[in-house]
């Protein structure tokens, strides 16, 4: 009897072990993403559109509230799901009809990778791209790969100059040289007090110098530009600022500013909630108003945040997806984002709202957009962050000759791009 029981238990264990390997039928699953409106269902059947993101949950809730309100009559509900390291998660599940979301929401710089993987549907396959007619052209172009629109731009962000009004003395300098003189006079690294802090080895935060000098990280033909003379000139020029800007990692510089140990910080709108929570009376200036020695304004990268549609979702939810995209593109979403979360809308019509037009952060970002350059969105960009930051770290922290650091970084970048193939 004991032997029979043992054999039965062993058999049951085998089944239990293998049970996890079974593939669930999406129609049987209780998950919201697997509750599609079948084509033969009545048109009023409720549909849930799942959107993966890796951003601020408050911002996503603002979008969801507005879109859901607009689509309540259609019984379409948008649900945002936060996924840590979303781009890599989407690489794993993007072509998996059971586990993939219907849409994703992220910055435009990863777009090229997703398109190369062939997991995204062109927006024109889902909806009339005329919904983008009122959008800022910079944001629309950032969502295109090879002339095809894959990303619906919703809002954009860029770097600005944020300063503590209680600590900053006088006006904000209008040249980088005057800014440097101010930093020399007002920085005491030994005491841990700084005039301006910046993530000076982070490629995104050094982009105002690189772009302003006419350098580039990678061009549209996927050619890295780290050993371009203008990129080297920019990295060399950034070095003297880095020496007066503390360690340069995100937590250090934001804490220094929020604790009143730094009078100014180069950062984006994502810092504002922390600054306000710290009770700092802050002012904002556009980086494009601060001129480099060559006369150009600082020209930061801009990141366009928007939504893309997964190919695997098209078969069963095309109509609902079209309605969601149309609602997301509406000026009302931009107005809500601007008023509730301080985001600069991609839809130009949102700026007609007097409350939006009165917001200092948004007008400054809009102004900076005149010199800002969208981050490259080709797939190879993903391989560039490492080499650029290695180069900036070697120059700013190890004192490596900029020309040599640039040659090494260029070789590393070319190898990284070759390794992608």
């Amino acid at each position, binding site marked *: 009897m004991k032997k029979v029981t*043992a*054999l039965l238990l*062993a058999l049951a*264990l*085998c089944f*239990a*072990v*293998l049970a996890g*390997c079974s593939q669930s039928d999406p129609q049987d699953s209780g998950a919201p993403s697997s509750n599609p409106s079948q084509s033969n269902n009545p048109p009023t059947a409720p549909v849930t559109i799942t959107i993966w993101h890796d951003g601020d949950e408050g911002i996503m809730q603002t979008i969801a509230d507005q879109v859901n309100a607009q689509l309540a009559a259609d019984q379409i509900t948008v649900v945002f799901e936060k996924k840590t390291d979303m781009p890599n998660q989407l*690489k794993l599940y993007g*072509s998996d009809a059971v586990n993939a979301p219907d849409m994703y929401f992220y910055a435009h710089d990863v777009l090229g*990778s997703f398109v*190369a*993987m*062939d*997991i995204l549907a062109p927006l024109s396959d889902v909806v009339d791209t005329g919904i983008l007619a009122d959008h800022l052209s910079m944001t629309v172009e950032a969502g295109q790969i090879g002339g095809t629109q894959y990303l619906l731009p919703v809002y954009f962000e860029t770097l600005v100059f944020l300063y503590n009004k209680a600590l900053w003395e006088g006006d904000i300098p209008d040249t980088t040289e005057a800014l440097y003189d101010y930093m020399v006079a007002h920085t005491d*690294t*030994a005491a*841990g007090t700084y005039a301006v802090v910046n*993530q000076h*080895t*982070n490629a995104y935060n050094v982009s105002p110098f690189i772009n302003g000098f006419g350098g580039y990280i990678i061009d549209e033909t996927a050619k890295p530009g780290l050993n371009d003379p203008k990129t080297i000139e920019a990295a060399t020029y950034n070095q003297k600022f880095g020496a007066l800007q*503390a*360690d340069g*990692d*995100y*937590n*250090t510089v934001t*804490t*220094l500013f929020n604790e009143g*140990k730094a009078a100014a910080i180069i950062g984006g709108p994502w810092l504002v909630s922390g600054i306000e929570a710290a009770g700092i009376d802050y002012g904002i200036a556009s980086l494009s108003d601060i001129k480099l020695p060559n006369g150009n304004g600082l020209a930061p990268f801009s990141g366009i945040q928007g939504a893309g549609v997964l190919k695997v979702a098209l078969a069963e939810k095309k109509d609902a997806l079209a309605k969601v995209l149309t609602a997301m593109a509406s000026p009302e979403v931009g107005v809500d984002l601007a008023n509730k979360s301080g985001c600069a809308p991609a839809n130009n019509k949102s700026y007609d709202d007097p409350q939006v037009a009165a917001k200092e952060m948004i007008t400054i970002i809009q102004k900076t957009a005149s010199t800002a350059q969208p981050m490259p969105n080709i*797939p190879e960009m*993903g*391989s560039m*962050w*490492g080499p650029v*930051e*290695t180069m900036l*770290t*070697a120059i700013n*922290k*190890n004192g490596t000759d900029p020309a040599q650091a640039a040659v090494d970084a260029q070789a590393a970048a070319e*190898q*990284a791009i070759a*390794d*992608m*193939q």
Partner: protein
Amino acid sequence: MRQKLRWKPWFYCVPALLLIFIVIVFPIAYTGYISLTNMNLYHWTDYGFIGFDNYARALFKFDSGFLAALGTTLVWTVLNMAIQIGLGFFIALGLNAPGLRLKRVYKTLLMVPWAVPAYISILLWRVGMFNTEFGILNKFLAMLGLGKVDFLASNGIAFLSCMALNLWMALPFMISTIDGALQSVDGSLYESATLDGAGFWVRTWSITVPAIRPIIAPAAVMTTFITFKQFDIIYLLTQQRGYMTGATLNTVITYAHQNAFASNNYGLSSAVSMLLFVVIILFSILTNRSLRED
């Protein structure tokens, strides 16, 4: 009848074997399969068999940079293991000293670093200990009137900083293992040795060490492998994107990650993984052989 008996034990083992196959064997085999394909960003779903091309490219990556990383890894492993076993042994001896009060409290406290998730520990040390502005070490230096030290800026000091953190995280396991082994040593041996006039060092060297060696050997071997393939401490302390400290320290794993895994080329990354797997298997065979000789 005998035929029946022959397959029965295997049948009882099937659930465990299945689990081992799914959790251990299958991922290795699948990595081996992917390493023979061109699976990358441009061939995500339509990848095909390309033979040993990825291995040829992976071997090319085992260049001077890889050899330097291998050297660093060996020094890292030897130093960490020597200190872990030596320090762990003396701390465990201290915890077993006769008359020591609150032993259980000390043992519990010593377990804390092991219980904290590695990622949290590393971030805590990066900001709380090593940070130039807010780290406690620099606060102490400032109190002594000394200048700031960037503990992660160059290879030498970054190596020592990483090692300090690794020891903090790994010592509890070694201490608890040795502590457990010490409980098994027959106390009468010490009494006889003391009557024979043996001092502390003679007792330790002639009784304690031989008695606990067979017990701690498997733990030491396991820890050696964990230390050899260390990734998170060095990566998160010095190389994380947006927080590169200036140190160019690499172990074989961080080197492979830097050179293959960041490219989204799964075929190439798998080939590098398989080659590293072979290196670790060889290392394992050598270690096991030396243990058997002991």
